[in-house]
């Protein structure tokens, strides 16, 4: 199953399971992005509007602030909305609602009520969509207490994490990596949930820990395969959820390997890589045998031309190159 189909499957499961779940967002009725119609098999399988009706599949005007705000109000009063915000750049339109309402209400009101709501948004980076449609803004939201932040990197994780997110009584932001939408993985067709705060170890290793985030996970896995051929054994960890973050798995791995490389498609400053670096430096400094290294996008807006954008994000080659610089004795001598 593809990553995008897995999201559609999780949404359908959640809507079948609970009448309080609604899907709300722009163009969800026509299923433009392919998550409200069971991917391409829409016609045979029946789309969401046919299956659940317009009461629960809410096609909206272009009004991000009102969509997010109304969904918060709905969540506070009995619904469990899945809000499809399409491009993650559009989250900024609703910043007030996300930060001042979704994240703060439960706390400010002393625990009266809860806000069971899922915000989905897609990071369309690497697709030559220019600066207005290529954001990877998840680190900004890690900085907002009260929001849970998910970055699934595979189809199976996307399905299980989305199901879990709908069950959560708190506001959850899911950032989908569009470059991974078409990626396939074996996905359990029955219902399952993946708990938050549990990393997925994609590959075990002993010389270096590579933490990959979102679209950088497959690159990290590829890098580890290449490194293995060069005699370096890399452990690859995908945290899957950034808030909460499975610090234990990361710290244990670093204590074992003594080295850490983090790869992510977001900007370098204050990114998830920066946060993970700080945690490891604070809590496992004694285990480090080499400096921590980050492979990120530069602190630049995303240029349009393929010739300019292509070099911006972590690739397997970049991860390999950076990793080799800190693997000293384990690296082949011809470095």
């Amino acid at each position, binding site marked *: 199953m593809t990553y995008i189909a897995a999201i559609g499957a999780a949404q359908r499961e959640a809507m079948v399971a609970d009448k309080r779940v609604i899907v709300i967002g722009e163009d969800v009725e026509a299923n433009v992005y392919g998550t409200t119609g069971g991917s391409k098999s829409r016609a045979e399988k029946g789309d969401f509007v046919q299956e659940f009706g317009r009461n629960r599949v809410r096609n909206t005007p272009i009004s991000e602030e009102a969509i997010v705000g109304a969904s918060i109000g709905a969540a506070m009063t009995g619904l469990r909305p899945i809000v499809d915000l399409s491009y993650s750049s559009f989250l900024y339109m609703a910043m007030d609602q996300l930060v001042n309402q979704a994240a703060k209400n439960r706390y400010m009101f002393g625990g*009266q009520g809860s806000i069971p709501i899922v915000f989905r948004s897609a990071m369309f980076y690497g697709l030559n969509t220019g600066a207005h449609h290529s954001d990877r803004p998840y680190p900004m939201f890690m900085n907002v207490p009260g929001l849970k932040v998910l970055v699934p990197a595979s189809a199976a994780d996307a399905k299980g994490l989305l199901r879990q997110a709908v069950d959560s009584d708190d506001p959850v932001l899911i950032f989908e990596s569009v470059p991974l939408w078409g990626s396939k993985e074996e996905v359990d067709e029955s219902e399952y949930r993946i708990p938050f705060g549990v990393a997925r170890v994609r590959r075990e290793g002993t010389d270096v820990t590579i933490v990959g985030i979102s679209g950088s996970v497959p690159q990290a896995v590829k890098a580890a395969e290449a490194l293995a051929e060069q005699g370096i054994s890399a452990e690859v960890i995908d945290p899957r959820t950034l808030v909460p973050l499975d610090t234990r798995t990361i710290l244990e791995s670093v204590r074992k390997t003594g080295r850490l490389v983090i790869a992510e498609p977001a900007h370098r400053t204050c990114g998830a890589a920066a946060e993970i670096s700080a945690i490891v430096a604070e809590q496992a400094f004694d285990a480090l045998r080499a400096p921590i290294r980050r492979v990120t996008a530069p602190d630049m807006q995303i240029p349009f031309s393929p010739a300019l954008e292509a070099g911006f994000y972590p690739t397997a080659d970049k991860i390999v190159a950076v990793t080799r610089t800190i693997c000293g004795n384990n690296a082949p001598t011809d470095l």
Partner: protein
Amino acid sequence: MSLSNDVMLEMQRRMLRIRLFDERASKMLKRGQIPGTIHTSIGQEAQVVGACMALDKHDNMTGNHRSHGHPIGKGSALGPLMAELVGKGTGVCKGKGGSLHLADFAVGSLGESGITGSSIPIAVGAALSAQVLGDGRVGLCFFGDGAANQGVLYESMNLASAYKLPVIFLCENNHYALSTPAHTVTGGRIWERAAGFGMPGVCVEDGQDVLAVYEAVKAAVDRARAGEGPTLVEVMTYRFREHAEGLRLNVDYRNADERERWTSRDPIALFRAVLIDRGVADAAAMDAMEADIAREVDDCVKFSDASPYPDAKVAFEHLYTDAYETEALQ
């Protein structure tokens, strides 16, 4: 519209609660017993109570920064509200909201907002859930003439109208946004903007008349409950006090004539005369009611005084429904 005597007396009671509560809070703030700032609804009681009384207890309401009147108008008990202003653990928000963020879910008060305009779509969402669940409730949001110029109102009105949501947009036009006269920053009339969204807009020109406000909002509530969608109600009123108490504003941007014109139309005194005039109660009964409410306010202060401050660990509660991170956060 013929309202029962009980309902009319309850209106006066709630207006008095707001007035006396706010007056007391103002005194306590000056004595340093309430931290921060407070925004009183003194002078605007008719508009708050007329609107809230047009709702049922189970209907939902969101307010703004002018913040004590709304939950009181909706029927909240005073003790936990006062305790909240002081920052006590028995506060309605456990001491974590304060004056700007009162919420009392028990009476359908989904929360005030310190960010102007920000609570408008929350009420729209409450109406959305009422529509999806078919439970017959309506939503109402209060906002000022200042907030009326924020884009979120228009996104919300459009969405509500397109979906025919049972929601009432209630603009409390007290003629000023902090120091800015409404007419200097507002193009046209606010209520007329409703027409552009295909919904009725009405203006209560005399917002000091609680019955006039009630009537307008009740019509909007009936319409909402009948599935006919949202209404924008603008109510013309005036705040008798400063924008915020506790803020040192050293300019006077309102002239004495204007203030005198409005303060001579005190909604509580006006309605007292109406009640006596209509034979609903005599002067003695009205005096007794005022004394009762004064005692209620005394009691709420006693309750607050006798309450402990929250334990420091409370600061780390209620971020999430599951406490997974609480320890890590400390």
